[in-house]
């Protein structure tokens, strides 16, 4: 079902980036390497967005996520004691996160991947490619996503104000 053309080769490469980078993040003992693997993973996801003709999301992915990794590295350098040889387990609830991760994986497997392979009717997916303009209109259209959009804006504004309040001097 997978024919070998430029698109599928691109998909394979970007998937390898995404998954390989993700594995690198959780397995590397060096915090900086972990952060850089995260870049690889996010870059792969941006590539997948491009393959889906969602250039806007790809650019935002690079701008917001990859652009912020530099700050993540600063935090890693400033807030941790040993950067290069992480040995100890800090969090005692690792089993809980493992459980959640496995649960999510099973959910994706059952909900998304199995139906595709069992020959489910995929004609429900619209062949029309939404443009950036469609995306922008959908975010401010009263019948579509204006409420989630505004709620997210308020949340972010509140978080920003909170950060300023915490950081300012008490005079």
């Amino acid at each position, binding site marked *: 079902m997978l024919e070998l053309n430029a698109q599928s080769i691109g998909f394979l490469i970007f998937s390898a980036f995404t998954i390989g980078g993700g594995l690198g993040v959780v397995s590397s003992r060096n915090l900086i390497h972990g952060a850089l693997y995260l870049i690889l993973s996010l870059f792969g996801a941006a590539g997948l967005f491009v393959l889906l003709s969602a250039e806007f999301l790809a650019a935002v992915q*690079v701008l917001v996520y*990859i652009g912020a990794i*530099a700050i993540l590295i600063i935090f890693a*350098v400033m807030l941790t004691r040993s950067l290069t040889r992480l040995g100890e387990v800090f969090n005692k609830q690792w089993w809980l996160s493992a459980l959640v991760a496995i649960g999510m994986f099973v959910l994706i497997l059952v909900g998304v991947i199995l139906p595709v392979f069992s020959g489910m009717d995929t004609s429900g997916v619209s062949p029309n490619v939404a443009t950036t303009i469609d995306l922008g209109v959908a975010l401010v259209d009263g019948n579509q996503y204006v409420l989630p959009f505004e709620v997210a804006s308020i949340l972010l504004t509140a978080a920003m104000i909170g950060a300023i309040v915490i950081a300012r001097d008490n005079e």
Partner: protein
Amino acid sequence: MECTDIINTLAACLEVSGTDPGLAQFIQILLGVVIVTMAPLIVVILLIWVERKFAARVQDRIGPNRVGPYGLLQTIADALKLIIKEDITPAGADRLIYNLAPIISVVSVVLIWAVIPFSPIHIGVDLSIGALYFVAVGSIGTLAIMMAGWSSNNKYALLGAFRVVAQLVSYEVPMVFALLVPVLIAGSMSMQGIVEAQRGMWFVILSPVAALIFFISTQAETGRAPFDLIEAESELVAGFNIEYSGMKFGLFFAGEFVHVFTNALLMASLFFGGWVGPAVDQVPALGFIYVVLKAAIFYLFSLLLRNTLPRVRIDQLMAFNWKFLVPVSIVNVIVVAFLLQVVRALGLAPSAELSNDFIANLPQAIVLLVGSLAIVIYVLQQLRNFGRQERLSQQTVTVRKEDEVDMLPAQAAH
């Protein structure tokens, strides 16, 4: 096949001569990419010479004048020297990251050239999100500097990198807000669309405030004086690239020079009409000359700033950005967006057929210009009040000190 951009013309010719269509497509894309990426790397050779000559004249020197006529080949000799120099990797450096950083630094700048329109038909690729693309790609440059600073295993390099990230991330905010203005007016994020929309009127007339903020913040993005805290020699020895030698240092160096000129090109394309000029539709190649001439003016202006202004302190740098540039740029975007809607509601905006006409653009331009003027006057007023307050508080401090001095002998007499 239609001739729409640099890349999409070769495959048609190859197919006619009997090459497999897929292969023809691949060769054409490969060649296009090579051409677009080589251009900045060739231009930089000239740029370095221009900058050195210019700096020399400002400082009352002659500048490079030995290798070739007017010292034109000096850069090539320097590059040769850099290549054959010993390449030193410091002990304890993270080898892979250390070697990767200069490459990513150059690539992040060169990638921007893919969306810069040089003429109606000459553009690497006219992405529908071109304006967003160059911000996204530019943000990778910050990362390269952080990688270089950390992997060098040197505290000065790391300190330099910290400063860079703080500076670049901060100045990205007003830059993006200023960038929003041309996108708003043109109604398109494609670079070609933004330039096309300026056929009637350059955007700098519609929003001079945005143009000025964009220029200042791009100057800070390149880490040039007065914002050159990145490599403040007197404080940080050389900054994030202190451990780099040979051609690896050369890559950072070249990347910075290309970045300055790229920003000049963006400035010309976003606010000064890009390739728009007389007879550009008949002879598209003229577009190259127009856009490069416009960019050259900004390039030379930025060199002049670099060579004449002193460096600001890090706290001044941050305060200037967060307390001045960011608020002004946000207000500017809101005012422009509001006035654009007003103009459209009143029917003052030029119709689609007349959008290339200068006269038809005048009403809209006048309304937006008045809006910009209002912002400028308000900001100047605020600055005046702020300055007066500062002076007054300074005076009271000195007066109090004088009182104390007067009191001391009086106490002694008692």
